[in-house]
């Protein structure tokens, strides 16, 4: 296995630092390159398929772009088929869908990292009665599958006339047990309580301490969870499918299901992949904006002092 090999390399390094280190680095680069290739490959394949025709996609796999990009996007002008293209189909409100997804996912990510992070901070810093019970309860809540209460949730939203509304998709993000749990664990390993006390001595009130001192310190953790929440919400099909059916409210996963669900005679994988590509580009952009936190590796040096 890779690990035992690596260990062997590590030991070798102790024997002969320069050669061992070089070999170790080569191993790292090779392994990392393989996985980087795998990681990019599917993304690449998705984009490639967006430039190919239905029948090309169905009958062969290609790593080179096809020449159907414009047809998939704007429709078949040659008259061979009546395919109107992803952007010209009046039934397919892709741009609106992108906007809807952006709103829902953006707000969900913001709410979940801020409020669940705040909750974690509350549990981490304060020793209020019932704290342990609260922590255990959230741990329990986290283990409940969405499907378990989804139908009850839908009925409730229906009673409150909140179907075809973004509220049921956004507000519940405030109570995100996994984000809470991550932030709690992260604080435990990286946020000394001294810093809070120092702030208190400086006369900072508790919420200000959280917003102005703790938040900036925990930025990398927040960024990571924001990316995760955003992606999860962006790709969520299950809940929006229950809550939304008006075309102008639909999010991208619903439009993907829409083009995949076309009658077999007009099912067009070129179109499906084009919608998939359009759906993934914004999430990529958001990811790259935030990924600098992951890449730069903001350390917690400021805390240590």
């Amino acid at each position: 296995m890779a690990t035992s090999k690596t260990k062997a390399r590590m030991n070798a390094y102790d024997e002969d630092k320069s050669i061992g280190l070089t070999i170790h680095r080569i191993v790292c680069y090779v392994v990392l390159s393989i996985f980087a290739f795998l990681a990019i490959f599917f993304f690449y394949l998705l984009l490639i398929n967006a430039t190919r025709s239905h029948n090309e996609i169905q009958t062969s796999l290609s790593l080179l772009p096809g020449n159907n990009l414009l047809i998939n996007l704007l429709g078949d002008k040659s008259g061979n088929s009546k395919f109107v293209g992803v952007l010209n189909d009046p039934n397919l409100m892709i741009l609106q869908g992108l906007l809807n997804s952006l709103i829902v996912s953006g707000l969900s990510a913001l709410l979940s990292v801020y409020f669940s992070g705040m909750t974690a901070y509350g549990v981490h810093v304060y020793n209020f009665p019932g704290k342990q019970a609260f922590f255990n309860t959230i741990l329990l809540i986290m283990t409940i599958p969405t499907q378990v209460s989804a139908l009850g949730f839908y009925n409730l939203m229906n009673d409150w006339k909140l179907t075809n509304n973004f509220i049921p998709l956004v507000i519940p993000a405030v109570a995100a047990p996994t984000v809470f749990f991550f932030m709690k664990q992260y604080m435990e390993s990286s946020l000394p309580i001294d810093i809070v006390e120092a702030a208190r001595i400086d006369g900072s009130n508790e919420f200000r301490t959280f917003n102005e001192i703790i938040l900036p310190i925990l930025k990398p953790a927040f960024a990571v969870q924001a990316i995760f929440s955003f992606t999860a919400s962006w790709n969520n099909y299950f809940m929006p499918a229950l809550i939304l059916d008006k075309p102008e409210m639909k999010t991208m996963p619903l439009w993907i299901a829409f083009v995949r669900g076309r009658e077999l005679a007009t099912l067009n994988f070129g179109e499906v992949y084009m919608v998939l590509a359009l759906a993934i580009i914004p999430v990529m952009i958001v990811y790259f904006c935030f990924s600098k936190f992951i890449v730069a590796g903001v350390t917690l040096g400021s805390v240590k002092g």
Partner: protein
Amino acid sequence: MKKRILTALLASAMILSVAGCDSTSEPATTTAGGAADTTTAAPVADDGDTTTAAPVEDGDAAAEQGKVLNIYCWNTEFQERYNAYAADVGEAHGVTVNWVINTNEGGVYQNKLDEALLAQADAAADDKVDIFLIEADYALKYTNSPYCMNVADLGITADDLANQYAYTQQIVTVDGALKGVTWQATPGLFAYRRSIAKEVLGTDDPAEVQAQLSDWTKFNDVAAKMKEAGYTMLAGYADAYRTYSNNVTTPWVVDGNLVVDDNIMKWADDTKVFQDNGYSNKDVGLWSDAWAKEQGPEGKTFGFFYSTWGINFTLLGNSLADANAPQEVGNGIFGDYAVCEGPQAYYWGGTWICAATGTDNTAVIADIMKKLTCDTATMKQITLDTQDYTNNKAAMDEIANDPNFGSAFLGGQNHIALFAAAAGNIDCSNISAYDQLCNENFQQCMNDYFMGTVDKTTALNNFYTKMKDTYPELNVPQA
């Protein structure tokens, strides 16, 4: 920088959530051409104050008619037909059409439709379901319910319907009352490769090939010959399923008991032989990529069971070498296919239009139904424009008897003539409300048997368990 992004995000979110709230009280109008601004919104009342209004009188065409027509469907096929051939009907009645399109995936369409129908009685007049579409595989669930109007009550007479194929009415007839109508008939045929037929059977003439395929024994004999010549008779394990399942003597469910018809078991047995002998490819399902590839230039399969819509769309598309080059002989195997009736008559697919009980748009619904499913001129035009096979004997016979009509894709053959003949032979008296999942699950479970993963008894038991899980009210046998 990120701060700005977040602020922008939040700001746009605020604006949109407000817009979103507003739009909930407005009918979603995705009318023809998507020109939302041209639809001067019909008077729309708040949910609150009209819920008790609008007494609904079924079937009384003279009753006060609503101005919003809510149509529930799962894809855009009907919408395209409506926009192209019946939009003027809606305009004449002054109704605004509101399409509620939910995907079939994961049963979403039926779930949403069910909710809407169950809430129908309490819904405001303009929110009620007016038209909904159904497929044969679950038609009975709706036609047998109180939520589906009798077509006769809409004012459509037997005379109006005289040109429709009998089977298309049989599927949606409950206790003698017709519950829905369809603009298309979907008889199935066997599409085969002319070149392979010539090589192995010595002829590519549809009549002579049909003579060698006219029953299952002959069909299996040809399959053996194909194998010898290095071809497979069918592409995958599910290819012939519809020809068996359409010719059963008992429906899937009788008095709440799940019954596997002898002919369905015959499919399992015959297919097992096909798979073990290499007459068809293992683990290749319908619509898989391997299945599609078999229909193209590199394919080694003799033929495919396909119904009307499949031949000039899917099969044609798959047969091409270059999808963007002109569709003509020389591009892939364009022109190499021909069709014949095959061993048994069957149909595959089809969409029925139903009027929902409680609708306030009976007059316009009746006119749309008449226009799209009874009017010979319109239906002939649909076929000429779209290659869709329409549910009108007179129109289809006209095309069938036209000596100048032929499909270049099928080497000049007039396939409409064959369809016209086949459509008359379809019998589908044995349907149940559970067919969709029965068919799906049975094929899937039996594939384990074909693959040799389990024996037949286990496969059957798996099927029974799956059905019981999905439908607790069913009594399932123990294999």
